[in-house]
């Protein structure tokens, strides 16, 4: 029987942690709705579980997504995630080979070098010693990077890092001590009685020259076990709760659980899965342009630790840049929206003034409120429809009911639903089979909240189709264009290819660092009711400047709100993609 009292702190810590986690997760999942629990039951024995395991390997261990932010930052996380995991696997395998049995207590593998008399060899003992030493070196190199990151975060590509609570800094120190202490304990043991491989063996011989290893070895094992135990005990109260919770989140997400409109147990799981890595800070323009600490990392941190967070709920553009950069893949927009209270007051008079008539046609065009404010866009669209010879009905030509998304973004879902009902009636009256919108905000609303059975496209997609089908004849030009992909069009609705195709066919489109998912927010977002006009202008000005660095002749966008916001902030002319196409169309 292999046992020594020094394994107790580790064993007690691990047992307490596992018990706590099991109770916590079961209590969360029990509050899920019936339909969601059915999804879990159906999902467990399906390919979704295998896919989750794959995702857990690539995200929780490899940390693949972090490499997109910075290779060094990615490597640092791989060292901790994959390195620690492999060290456990290698240690366990080694102990099983030695013990020739699958069942041995967890501490036996962790403290193997203590229990194993070094002189005694067993199959592949040298290989195992080499592998575990290599892995330890791998983790220590990551630790070195982590230390460098604390001193100078730019070294791993981060302009700003998270401000942590004192308790989190304490547990961070505990975590950092684990591997150096393991290194010392194993080296001392090796220096005393041999064993180990290139790292611990050489270090042991080195230490033996000037340290009284007889007295130091045993306390070193106690210290190693002690910090492990302390880390496990502190984990549930610190940000490191993200380690087990991210795994649970990945399973639930793949089994089909979604963040609803309420802040519920699944939201809490997301909140605990946030690692506070702080990658969202650099991606947020409220920080880069205005220096505000309103990013998901601080928002979730405040909610979790019961600090006042009311002022952060509204202070978010819901542009989705944090979501696109989040290595854990949390749904930050939905989380923020779930905290916005629904203050709707519905009476029978609410929006009763809205008409519900429209001329019938196969295709309906909806300019939206913002579209109404940019007549150049609606004029261009009407010109293009005529040139392509499509019959259409302009359902809000004389002004109509708002799509409801701005109301929904303010939290008032019920009032938004009344508006949706009005527009559904108008669409039904028109008998249209396709709906074309000029505003991506409307597009997202029509697609996600209306439950319509017809095809809903944004005008970029529609124009792209018309050009490819040969219904619109365009003349290419030498104009240099940069495309600003609106938040609700790109990240919001996943439309990236259509504007790319159009601009490449009619102009010299310049690729920028802000293409695709990395596009900037113009600052005009209706989702933020906290910042004022001047602050919006500063965001717009910074974004316009970033695009202007590529020296385009025209800054092209595909959202009337973005166009309006940039109009006063950009020195370069701003046009909607519909206008640019209309200019390049042969009559």
């Amino acid at each position, binding site marked *: 029987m292999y046992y020594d009292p020094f394994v107790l702190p580790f064993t007690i810590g691990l047992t307490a942690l596992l018990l706590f986690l099991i109770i916590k997760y079961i209590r969360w999942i029990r509050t899920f709705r019936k339909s969601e629990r059915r999804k879990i039951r159906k999902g467990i024995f399906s390919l979704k579980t295998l896919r989750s395991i794959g995702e857990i390997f690539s995200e929780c261990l490899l940390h693949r997504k972090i490499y997109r932010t910075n290779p060094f930052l990615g490597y640092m996380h791989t060292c901790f995630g994959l390195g620690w995991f492999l060290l456990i696997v290698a240690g366990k395998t080694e102990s099983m080979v030695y013990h020739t049995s699958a069942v041995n207590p967890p501490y036996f593998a962790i403290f193997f070098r203590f229990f194993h008399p070094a002189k005694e060899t067993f199959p592949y003992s040298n290989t195992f010693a080499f592998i575990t030493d290599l892995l330890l070196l791998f983790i220590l190199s990551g630790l070195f990077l982590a230390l460098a990151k604390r001193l100078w975060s730019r070294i791993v590509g981060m302009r700003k890092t998270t401000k942590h609570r004192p308790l989190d800094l304490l547990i961070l120190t505990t975590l950092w001590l684990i591997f150096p202490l393991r290194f010392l304990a194993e080296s001392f043991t090796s220096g005393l009685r041999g064993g180990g491989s290139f790292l611990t063996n050489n270090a042991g011989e080195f230490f033996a020259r000037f340290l009284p290893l007889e007295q130091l070895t045993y306390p070193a094992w106690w210290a190693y076990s002690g910090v492990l135990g302390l880390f496990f005990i502190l984990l549930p109260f610190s940000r490191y709760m993200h380690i087990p919770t991210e795994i649970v989140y990945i399973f639930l997400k793949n089994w089909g659980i979604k963040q609803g409109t309420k802040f519920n147990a699944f939201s809490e799981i997301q909140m605990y899965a946030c690692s506070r890595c702080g990658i969202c800070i650099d991606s947020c323009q409220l920080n880069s342009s205005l220096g505000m600490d309103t990013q998901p990392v601080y928002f979730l941190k405040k909610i979790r630790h019961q600090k006042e967070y009311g002022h952060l709920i509204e202070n978010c553009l819901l542009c989705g840049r944090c979501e696109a950069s989040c290595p854990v893949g949390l749904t930050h927009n939905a989380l923020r929206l779930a905290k916005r209270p629904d*203050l709707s*007051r519905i*009476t029978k*008079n*609410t*929006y009763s*003034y*809205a*008409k519900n008539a429209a001329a019938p046609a196969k295709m309906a065009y909806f300019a939206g*409120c*913002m579209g*109404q*404010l940019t007549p150049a866009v609606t004029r261009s669209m009407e010109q293009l429809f005529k040139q392509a010879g499509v019959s259409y009905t302009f359902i809000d030509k*004389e*002004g*109509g*009911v*708002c799509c*409801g998304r*701005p*109301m929904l973004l*303010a939290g*008032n879902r019920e*009032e938004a639903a009344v*508006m949706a009902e009005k527009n559904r009636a108008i669409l039904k009256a028109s008998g249209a089979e396709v709906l074309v919108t000029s505003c991506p905000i409307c597009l997202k609303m029509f697609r996600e909240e209306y439950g319509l059975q017809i095809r809903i496209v944004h005008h970029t997609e529609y124009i792209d189709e018309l050009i490819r089908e040969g219904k619109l004849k365009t003349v290419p030009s030498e104009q240099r264009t940069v495309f600003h992909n609106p938040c609700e069009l790109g990240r919001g609705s996943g439309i990236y290819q259509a504007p790319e195709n159009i601009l490449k066919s009619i102009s010299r489109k310049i690729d920028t660092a802000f293409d695709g998912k990395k596009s900037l927010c113009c600052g*005009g977002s*209706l989702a933020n*009711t*906290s910042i*004022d*006009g*001047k602050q919006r202008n500063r965001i717009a000005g910074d974004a316009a400047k970033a695009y202007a660095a590529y020296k385009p002749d025209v800054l092209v966008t595909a959202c009337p*709100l973005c166009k*309006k*916001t940039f109009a006063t902030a950009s020195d370069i002319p701003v046009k909607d993609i519909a206008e640019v196409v209309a200019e390049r169309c042969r009559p």
Partner: protein
Amino acid sequence: MPTLWGYSISAARSIDYDKNDPLFRRWLAIASPSSQLCIGCGGCTAACSAGNLTEFNIRRLQMLVKRGESRETAEQLHKCMLCGKCLLVCPRGVDTRQMILSMKRFLREHDQ
């Protein structure tokens, strides 16, 4: 006095700061500071999606608040769709959406 100087006062447009209930007005000035920048140009009302279809007038809302007529304000507020067009046309940078949301919050807190 005013008649002496050849002016007349339209009761429908007057704000009597001595007699009106100042609660709503003072509350809004704190909750939505930019609302105080309004010069009453009416740009918001001209652009308004709701105003296009009904008698909804943001400029008038401001006056109702200053007169302390919270009941009438509540009835009018029902019509706003919060689309944000007014925000884009305001020459003074009044955060109109935030102003309207603040009004709604006041009315909710005061049971109207």
